[in-house]
């Protein structure tokens, strides 16, 4: 049985609803039950959104991705300025207009152009066209370090390497000895 993701979320919300029911039995007050129910309502809403997305086949790999996110730093800056305006003086909030304008200017340019084929990306080597393209898109690694190809003995390719064998048999013997000792002592006491 493989549960559907939306049902996992809604099932979890239902489990919480049962706990709210128990709270009612324990005569929880209106604040407690209301608060808990509100939390469950949010989770249920999320679960329904997941169910809806799955029903509309919005699940599966998302190959088309935005290529930059500069507008988001501007949006966060605007949020911070509005907040600082509330703390200190409202004129600070007015400055948020500039980063918000930048958000509008940057936002659309960050999306992947239509009819673009995102590479290198695959869910399976069965996708031959992408496999061909991979040769033209060598990956050099991130600045943190260089990527190392999978070795021949990796399980995705070939037989496993030798596994060092540090047996836990000694511990098991100690455990069995303790159990036997306890049983003997227990019988003696009787």
């Amino acid at each position, binding site marked *: 049985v493989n549960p559907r993701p939306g049902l996992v979320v809604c099932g979890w919300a239902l*489990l919480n609803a049962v706990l*709210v029911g128990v709270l009612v039995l324990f005569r929880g007050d209106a604040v407690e039950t209301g608060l808990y129910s509100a*939390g469950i309502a949010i989770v249920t809403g999320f679960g329904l959104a997941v169910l809806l997305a799955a029903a509309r086949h919005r699940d*599966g790999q998302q190959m088309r991705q935005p290529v930059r996110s500069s507008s988001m730093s501007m949006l966060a800056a605007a949020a911070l300025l509005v907040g600082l305006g509330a703390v200190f003086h409202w004129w600070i909030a007015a400055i948020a207009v500039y980063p918000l304008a930048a958000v509008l200017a940057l936002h659309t340019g960050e999306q992947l152009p239509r009819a673009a084929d995102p590479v290198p990306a695959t869910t399976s080597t069965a996708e031959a066209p992408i496999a061909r393209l991979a040769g033209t898109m060598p*990956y050099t690694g*991130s600045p943190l370090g260089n990527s190392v190809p999978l070795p021949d003995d990796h399980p995705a390719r070939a037989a496993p390497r030798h596994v060092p064998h540090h047996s836990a048999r000694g511990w098991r013997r100690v455990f069995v000895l303790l159990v036997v000792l306890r049983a003997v002592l227990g019988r003696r006491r009787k």
Partner: protein
Amino acid sequence: VTALDQPPARPVPVNPARSFPAGWLDTTDHKRIALLTLGTALTLLVAMGGLALTMRTQLAQPEMHILGADTYDEFFTIHGSGMIYLVMTPFAIGLGLYLVPLQIGAVNVAAPRVTMLGFWLYLAGAASMLSGFLTSGGAGDQGWYSYPPLASSRHSPGPGVDLWILGVTLVAVGMLLMAGTVLWTALLKRAPGVTMLRLPVLSWSVVVTNLMVIGAFPSLLVAMAILAVGRINPAIFDNNMWNIGYQHVFWFFGHPVVYVMFFPFVGAVVEVLSTFARRRYFGYKPTVLALLVFAALSMSVWGHHMFTTGQSSNDYFSLTSILLLVPAGVEYFGFLATVIGGRLVFPTPMLFALAFVPQFLVGGLTGIMISMPAVDYQVTDSYFIVAHWHYTLAAGSLFGFLAGFYFWFPKATGLMLREDLGKAHFWLWLVGTNVTFLPMFYLGLHGMPRRIPTYLPTDGFTAANLTATVGSAVLGLGTVVFLTNLLVSFCARRPAPPDPWQGHTLEWATSSPPPPTNFTPEYPIPKVRSFAPLLDLRELREQHRGAPIGPATDADGSGP
């Protein structure tokens, strides 16, 4: 219109590997966003540790005044708030952000720009909260849960508390966005063959964590809104309904967040234990069920923080809190059954994971003790609570995080950490943690209240406080060793292979560090038949020893 009628697709690289700063600061790669989050949280961990060391130095002897009373209040407020909102929660959510798309074979996180907005809001929130130290009135000094009426502008004037509220609000929104996108990814963006019951335990732990975030974090926003209104009009807190109402709303977030800061590290410990025990994790389905039940119960226990107010349904909250033992017991059974009989090896991640098990048990069991109102009435607001809390979050969650950190560091950076320095870090932290926090149980039981800047020689608290301070110094030394390890590993690089530990899950099938789109034809997704796909392949090869098996590259779940 058929596919043949459409114009040919133009190849466009997704998340090309650009260098710092542009390649990182406007990235849409979930790995980079996660590393930015984790790196920021790690930096803040060191800063928050510095605050803690200063406070412990003050408490080493009676009547010491390194910090004034007000500054001490600011230090414990920012230490507590920082560790919860700025360090442990981002660690938990950042870990999920990095690993979940890799473990489920996804190209990226869903809505990566929204995820990046979450990071920027987190950074802005952290800056806002800490900037209180630069104001004339100092930083927020009302404690991490900021109870009114103390937090109102009448009793805590100055912008420090305002900046604290702003910071918490921004961070909460940021974490909500990150958690929402990671949850959406785990639920809907899995590769073919990766069904819900083939998700690794870590991914499941992130799923339940993020469910709690979705359900509970909006409550924190409401709590901050109440405080903000109270800052404008403190008269609302003359009515006790708002004070108690705030406590309910706050703790409806405040208790689940403890589990938000715990579950992903349970998942990390599961992966580490099973990898270094060289066997499949024992009790996968019961553990998944236990995680879901654990998370649901954790939403229903918030009132145990309010036993002494007399304004919560004590029987119910005590019952649900004690019931937490059942799913926790299932998880612990899984840990032990995986390790016993395994072919154990003990690299640094395994040491941290093994230490997590008993240390978190101390935190958990003392939590059950104080979930009984009769006990809670005696020890509330004492150092017993501080000890319980630190065994849960420092000795427990932080050790779990470090197990994951040492485990996945080679994957994330392509570099191996130094084992000798890692082990030195582990032993120093093991000793330091217990020497610091164990005496606090004694202090609490002997009546030392939490949050006092000093005490009298006649109180009888000196020896235990001195011991705790010595322990904190050992922790500080361990942190220096940890930072040295990072520095040495970055300066004198030892490249990491793709799978240095013989891991079980999909992230070990790609390069170290993974390519921008995680899996490419060069680094394909192996066939996924269970929650431990690489272990499946190893076992398959053991069964067919001598008979070569071709690369397992089909991810549609069909047989070889």
